[in-house]
């Protein structure tokens, strides 16, 4: 599935909810289901700066696609990462680089997109794209 299709799927899922509480509850549940990063990758060098909670991201290449795994010590942050990873993982680096993140706004989590927000969603997106750029350079 393309990144755009996945994002549309996420938008569909969130459109079922009427208020912030249901949206957040769903995000928290997604966070709980996030495939855990292998403990060996929970290193200081894999921590994304700019988050009040700790966020670790690991990336590896499998058949020209990047597979992301991640974890956080805060569950809402984990939910946000789960949404991002579902949209970006198992994709070609080029597609990740070009991907939009407007869908975050459309699922009612706009407040997390502000660069001054302490959760560092913006830093997370930047980090995922940085990995994509690095792997793309290797490929070309």
């Amino acid at each position, binding site marked *: 599935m393309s990144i755009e299709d996945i994002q549309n799927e996420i938008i569909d899922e969130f459109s079922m909810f009427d208020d912030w509480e249901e949206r957040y509850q769903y995000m928290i549940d997604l966070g709980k289901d996030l495939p855990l990063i292998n403990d060996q990758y929970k290193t200081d060098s894999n921590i994304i700066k700019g988050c009040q909670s700790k966020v670790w991201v690991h990336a590896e290449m499998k058949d020209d696609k990047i597979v992301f795994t991640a974890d956080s010590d*805060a*569950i*809402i*942050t984990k939910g946000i990462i789960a949404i991002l990873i579902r949209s970006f993982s198992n994709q070609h680096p080029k597609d990740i680089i070009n991907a939009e993140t407007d869908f975050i706004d459309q699922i009612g989590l706009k407040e997390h997109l502000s660069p001054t927000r302490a959760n560092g969603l913006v830093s997370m997106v930047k980090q995922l794209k940085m990995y994509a750029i690095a792997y793309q350079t290797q490929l070309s």
Partner: protein
Amino acid sequence: MFNVEDVRKDFPILSRQVNGKPLVYFDNAATSQTPQQVIDAIVDYYSNYNANIHRGVHTLSQEATDLYEQARHKIQTHFNAKFSHEIIYTSGTTHGINLVANGFSSLLKKGDDIMVSALEHHSNIVPWQMLCERTGANLKVIPMNEEGELVMSAYADLLSENTKLVFVNHISNALGTINPIEDIIKRAHNVGAAVLIDGAQSSPHIKPDVQKLDVDFYVASAHKMCGPTGVGMLYGKEEWLKKLPPYQGGGEMIAEVTFEKTTYADLPHKFEAGTPNIAGGIVFGAAIDYMNSIGFENIAAFENELLEYATDKLLEIEGLKIYGNSKHKTSVISFNLEGIHPYDVGTILDKLGIAVRTGHHCAQPIMDFYKIPGTIRASFAFYNTKDEIDALVAGVKKAKMMLS
């Protein structure tokens, strides 16, 4: 007679909504809200008196200078300094600390000790670490115990004739502990050390008497006392302020300038280079007037009532732990829910219109002591209510339910 509903009418912001809910503002330890009287003073200054001070012969400049110096006098009276020139306007507490730390660069030598407490804000740690790097002095730390109190016996052991300076906050911003500063000052003076007290967290709750305390330096910020941001004060004993070299060079702080030599102005102007925050200084005076019109005894009594009420209510929640349980504390409650990150709780509370602080509160050593990433901190002011505390308790319960 103190009536919280009347007091709340002074604060326009308290009637706004956040995320569709009435604002519950419990981040007072970060900054206090501003009453209409103080907002009016800002408008009045810019509408009627705006001019540069201390140099114009014209009427406007004279009037602005008078107001600025009258405000300094108000600050002097409030903190009971002996002379008004012992009050130095700063941009805030951090500026005051840096000014003193910088001044001590020329007074310390290798092997001297300076002492900080384990309960400090980063702004009362980092400038002193920088001072140690410049001078070769050693930084000693007064330890804390599980209750969030300083271990005074350890303090006594650390003091020696090598100790030149002790700097401790009056009240911990992260835990609310009121430190026994009278004792700290007395013991430091016994070995000939000077003491700086960081009053950022105490000045909104307590009216300190710097002469009675016999403290050498006391720093505070206007924005924690219902005043504007970007202005604060440093009190220093005259003898110390004369001893310290100027911090920054520029206009206002000079007596005479030639390319060969510059002589410095007398106190307090020696430490006030450049055009100051004139409106801020004047309005700081208005904020002090406002707080005194409420009365510090009323403020302390009511805030203590809020603290006790909130502590009891919060502790009814299973798995909630409060950090900092000193018998002597102000209206700050730092807490966590077992197994839940403070950031998550803060996010849910925000959705409910409740403003609390989450994180390490610029006091990472305290978090390291408790081995936690941070806490949720609710800090109350005299314009908060028990109904708001009920809303907080309900919010924390909801957060717990959603996040568990």
